[in-house]
Structure formats: C-alpha cells, structure tokens
C-alpha cells in the first residue's frame, strides 16, 4: 500500500507542483535568514523575500494537499529527451562561445538541438547550420556590430 501511494505521487500533477513551490519557497526563506530583516517601518533586505517565501510555501502546501485528494495525473509523457538535448545545446553554446568562438558554437547548437526532435536528417541539419550561421553572423556581427570572435583567435 505504501509503495502504491509513493508511485502514485510521482506522477501526481498537483502534488509535484506543490512540492516544487514548497522547495523554492523554503529555499528563499532559508537564504533570506542571512539578510537583515529590519522592521515594518524600516524594511531590511530580508523582509520582503521572507514574506514571499512563506506565502509561496503556504500556496505550495495547499496545492500539494489538493493533489493528494484529487489524484490528477500529469498529462502525457515527460519529454526528457527533447528537454535534455535542448538544454545541452544552449549550455554548450554558452560554454563554447567564449572559448572557441561563434561559428563552432553555432554548429554545436544546431546539431545538439536537432537531436531533440523526433527525426534527425544529417544533410538538412548541415544545410540549416550553414544558412542560419551566415544569417546570424550577418545580423549580429555585421549588422549590430557585436565584437564576437568567429573562430579561435579570429574576429
């Protein structure tokens, strides 16, 4: 029985939403303990965040309890694969932009992002990368005159 409930909660829409709100709210309150509270008349930097964190926790508890009562499920499957590849492509872009320059970063963005989709066609992605990279360099480097290195050491 205990196992059954636990399994159930893993996909319980409102339970998870409430849990997320409680975690973020609690984190906000805990961190804000390091900031001076002040008084209502002279609010310190910790005053407003502590109130907000507390309120967020309260809403979280309500949503969580409601989830346990209603048992509504998350609709559809979680799209872990698109989420992982899209996130990866953006993170890699940030990482490579400073180190290798804009062109390598763009190539990586397109290939990693395209892997997030249901089908991956190498030639299409290659063509897309070339076209969009030319466009992006034109707009950002020549149009908006942003000082980006294109390749390592080449501006």
């Amino acid at each position, binding site marked *: 029985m205990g196992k059954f409930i636990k399994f159930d909660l893993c996909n319980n829409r409102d339970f998870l939403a409430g849990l997320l709100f409680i975690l973020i709210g609690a984190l906000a309150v805990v961190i804000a303990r390091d900031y001076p509270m002040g008084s209502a008349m002279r609010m310190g930097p910790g005053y407003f965040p502590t109130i907000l964190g507390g309120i967020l926790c309260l809403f979280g508890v309500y949503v969580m309890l409601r989830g346990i009562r209603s048992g509504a499920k998350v609709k559809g499957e979680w799209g872990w694969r698109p989420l992982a590849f899209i996130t990866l492509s953006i993170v890699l872009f940030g990482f490579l*932009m400073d180190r290798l320059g804009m062109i390598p970063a763009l190539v990586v963005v397109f290939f990693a992002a395209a892997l997030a989709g*249901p089908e991956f066609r190498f030639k299409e992605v290659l063509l897309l990368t070339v076209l969009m990279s030319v466009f992006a360099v034109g707009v950002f480097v020549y149009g908006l005159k942003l000082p980006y290195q294109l390749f390592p050491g080449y501006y």
Partner: protein
Amino acid sequence: MDVLNNLILGFTVAFSLQNLAYCFIGVLLGTLVGVLPGIGPLVTIAMLFPLTFHLPAVPALIMLAGIYYGAQYGGSTTSILVNLPGETASAVTCLDGYQMARQGRAGPALAVAALASFFAGCIGTLLIALAGPELGEWALKFGAAEYFSLMLMGLVASAVLTQGDTVKGFAMVVLGLLLGIAGTDVNSGMARYSFGVPALTDGIGFTVIAVGLFAVAEIVSNLDLREAREAFTRKILHLMPTGKDLKDSSWPTVRGTAVGAVFGVLPGTGPALSSFVAYMLEKKVAKDPSRFGKGAIEGVAAPEAANNAAAQTSFIPMLTLGIPTSATMALMLGAMTMQGIEPGPQAMIAKPELFWGLVASMWIGNLLLVVLNLPLVGLWVRLLRVPYRWLFPSIIMFCALGNYGVNNNPVDVYLVALVGVLGYILAKLECEPAPLILGYVLGPLMEEYLRRALLISRGDPTVFFTRPISLAFMIAALLLLVVMIAPALDRFRASGA
C-alpha cells in the same frame, strides 16, 4: 488642443526615416516569425526582443511595438490557414476563419481580418492618445500606498483570470515576485540570491526569464507533443472580399472594437477574453446564429477587431501607470525598463517624444500591417510549409545568441537553459507562466512601494486601507478574489467529502 499638438510631435518623431525603418523592420520580422507554425506572439517577442536591446530607446520601442503587432497578425494568419492559433487571442478566429479557408475563401478571410484589425488599431491608438494623458494626470496623485495596492490588484487579477487554476496562478505570481527581487537590494546594497555568482548581483535578466519561460519551454513542450496538423496551402485565388463581405463585417468590426477596447484596459483579461466575448456577442445579435462555425465572415471580423483593439488599449495602463495587464505587456514593460525608462506618469511628462512617438508609430505600424500583409499573403502561405524540425533549432540559436549578446556573458545563456527547464516542468504541471512574468516585472517595484508606504506611515499597515484610492484598489482586489475563489472552495470541499 493639447492632444493635437502632442500627436503632431509624435508623428514628427515616428516619421523620421530611421524610426519609420525600424517600425517597418519590426512589423515585417514580427509577421514573418509570427506566421511560422507553432510560434505564438509571446515566443516571437521573447526571441526578437534582444535584437532591439542594442538600439536607442525610441527606435527600440517602436520596433518592439511593430514586432508585437506583426506577431499578433501573424497569429491570425496561422489560425485562418492552418487552424492553429498561436495564442488564445486568435483561437476564436479559427472557428470561422479556417472554415472560410476550407471553402476557398481564405483570401477574403485574411483581408477582412487585416481590415478589421486596422480599423480597431486606429480607434485604439486614438483612445491611447485621448485617455493616456488624463489617466497619467490622475496617477500623479498616487503615492506609494496607491501604487502598491494597484499592483496588488493587478497581480490578483492576473492570478484569478488566468486560464488555469487560480491557486497555482497565485503561487506563480509569488514565484515571479521572488525571481524579480533577486539581485542587489537598492536600499542596502546587499546582493540577494546571487549564490556568489557576480553576474547574478544584477538580478536575473529580463530576457533570460522571457526567453527561457516562453521560447525554450514552449519548444520542448511542442517537441513532446508531435501533433499532426493539416495546413491549407492551396493557392489563394482571389484575395479581395466582395462588397457583401465588407458590408457584413462592418458592424461586427465596430462592435468588436468596442468590446476589445474595454477589455484591453482591465488587468488580467487582455486580448484573449475580448475576442471570445466579441464572438459570443456576434452570435447573439446575428439573425441566423447557426451560420457561425461554418465560415461566417462576422466570426472573423469581430474577434480580430476585438483582439487588436485590446492589444492597443492594453498599452494604456502600461504606459500611464506602469502596470502591465498581460504577459505581452509585461514583456514590453520589461523591455522599457531595460532601456532605462520606468513607465508611468513621470515618464510621460519627462519624455513626451517617447510616449507620443510610440503612439504615432502604433498607428503607422497598423497601416504597414495592411499594406504589407495583403500583397504578401502568398509568401506567408508558403512559409506555413516550413517544417518544425527546421524551425526549432533556429529559434534556439536566436535565443542563445540573443541572450549572450545582452551582456556578452555566458552566465546569461546558462540561466536561459535553467529557466527553460523550470518553465517546461511548470508547464507540464499545468502552471500558467503569464502570472509569473507579471510578478517578475512588478517584484522590485512592489517591494520599493511597500517599503516607502510603510516608512511614511511609520510601519502602520492600515495605510493601504485609509487612503481612499488605495482602499478602492484593495476592495477591487478582494472582490475579484471572492468572486473567483468561492466556487473553487466549494469544489475543494466537494472533492474532499
């Protein structure tokens, strides 16, 4: 004639070659991106917004407003041709617009949508010019307490009137407020929630939140949906509506404009509700309501007029009071703040060229939309055939590159990924992002006004209820709560019993 003089000032600003060019680019880009399947106006604005960041304030806002109208109109085009509304505001247009397209009348449907939008846009612009200064003057009387109560009312409205669940809407507002106040506290100089990262002492960037929440999260959601859609891509034979079409759609356009103008000003309602109400109204007054849903031209004209009028008038509270009434307006407000302008009565007086230039360029933008869209319909139809697998990597690229460009700092790009993950999880748990972005934008202002109000009252919280204007906003907020929460509480009790 103050208004006339001001409008002349506005048009001189807007008609400068540079501003006209940015208005045109904005409208063109907005429509171009907005028409692409699966990309709604919010994503369009979030994605293109970093482009305007490198421009001076006036052209940047003019271009942004252009993007906004273009994106909205692009959304109507996809509703009519693909039966795929980019956002809720054009969902109603699908009902009859798509039916008209299937009957081979896509041309007249698009033309009537453009003309109705243009009419509504003209009236909307005029209303901003007339009501803006009045409201701004009234708002000059506001002190910290009034502003705090007004913002509270706006946030309550956005949570209560959101499409999803009210309680989650409130939680999202609070989450947004928390995200908004991260960064250096203006009073004490203390860096809050910066986790030791220097870039975070400036807070979480506005573009990071907008792009992560609306573009990245939306793409992941779209990729895990994978629904088939039937695009109407046959050649459009004749574009021009017949005389009868125009006659049939003239009164619905006027009524739709009136409905939209009212709903646009109200916080939390915005274009979505207005187009729905306008459609229902037409159905009520029609002699033969059974034609609706089968390609009635009134069913295209009224909601299109309504959502465009609302799109215009929603600028009124944003420009004069600094209160955004929808997620899109929150994006505009955030963009203005990034340009160093704090919208409100002071900005209107201190920078008249900005306010009136923007108003004038709104009208020009609406005109450009008609001029641009009618001849280019054929091109838009072809764009609809672009497969999503080409689009989404390009959008991701724009988001990553655009955000990198704001501070030339990779931390912003990492944060986009993080906010994107959070946004996707929240979307999956059916928490609407619109209240969050409103909270995010208003967070720092609310804290500041709360602080000032309590400082003046010596820490006495009754100040919000003893000043008449503030009390009125508080009562309005309370009424909204009671009206919407009462049935939800009943349901909760029923489900528990």
